[in-house]
């Protein structure tokens, strides 16, 4: 969060707090009606005070504008990767690539959940993947495996030689066995019935 956004947030919190307290006090009759009336009277009829109030209003509007710009800066940033063909331009939405990564990583049985987020910048394509893993996996091995898998998938699918940086954040470990290990154990634990010929045959 940059400084401007912090200041705007601080201003809004303070302003809303002030307005909220005033409304409560007025509603509970703790603030005399005459005081409110006098205040509005002064604002309305005193030119200096009314100009000050206009200035404050304009300041709030300007701050509001900056606040809105800061909040929407992320949504306005370029969310596609583009390359040109002889026939025209091809834009690939970063959301499509997020889908691609989600599907690719979901194929790994040890990964319970993945939330990828992509940023395309000067340094190449930066992928932040937040994953939920099963408890019985070796995390360094698994994350390295996922990084390689995501990177190669992006290279294969996009055919770009751009640098791809994959950050993996393990946000949660879920206790329990992974699907593949459970399946292996079930197979080994299952007692094998001997193959008896003429089984169930009744004379």
């Amino acid at each position: 969060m940059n400084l401007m956004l912090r200041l705007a947030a601080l201003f809004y919190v303070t302003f809303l707090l002030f307005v909220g307290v005033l409304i409560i006090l007025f509603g509970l009759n703790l603030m005399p009606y005459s005081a409110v009336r006098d205040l509005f009277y002064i604002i309305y009829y005193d030119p200096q005070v009314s100009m000050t109030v206009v200035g404050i209003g304009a300041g709030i509007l300007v701050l509001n504008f900056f606040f809105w710009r800061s909040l929407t800066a992320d949504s306005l940033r370029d969310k596609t990767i583009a390359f040109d063909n002889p026939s025209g331009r091809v834009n690939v939405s970063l959301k499509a690539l997020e889908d691609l990564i989600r599907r690719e990583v979901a194929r790994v049985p040890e990964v319970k959940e993945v939330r990828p987020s992509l940023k395309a910048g000067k340094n190449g394509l930066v992928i932040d993947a937040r994953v939920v893993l099963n408890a019985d996996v070796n995390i360094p091995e698994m994350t390295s495996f996922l990084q390689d898998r995501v990177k190669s998938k992006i290279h294969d699918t996009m055919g770009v030689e751009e640098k791809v940086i994959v950050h993996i954040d393990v946000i949660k470990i879920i206790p329990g066995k992974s699907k593949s290990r459970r399946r292996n154990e079930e197979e080994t634990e299952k007692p094998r019935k001997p193959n008896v010929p003429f089984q169930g045959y009744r004379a």
Partner: protein
Amino acid sequence: MKEFNKVDLGSVKIHKKVIAEIAYNAIEELDGIRLGKGNFLNGLAELFNVSSGYPGVSIIIDKNNQVIVDVRVSVRYGINIPDAAKQAQDVVRRAIERTVDIDLKDVNVNIQGIEKGES
């Protein structure tokens, strides 16, 4: 001399919707590529009769009367995106140039999503 021999039979106007329909049908025939669904803005545009009527296809005519076709598609999981995009561009360009002899400038492809399917 040329002007003398010229016979003016009238003008032929091709509506944007016709070009959009050609592009739509060309993309529909491709395997592994599907046209994107229209979003809220497309719905609004259609309501006010501004849209091409084919979700996922937009036709733009620039100042020089050159036509630009914008298609929004999603590709099946496992398909190479540049290849799919190039295929879509070629198919649309061929179909439009074959059917209506217009000055087609660009066919822009926007890949908006990945669909379920086998690689």
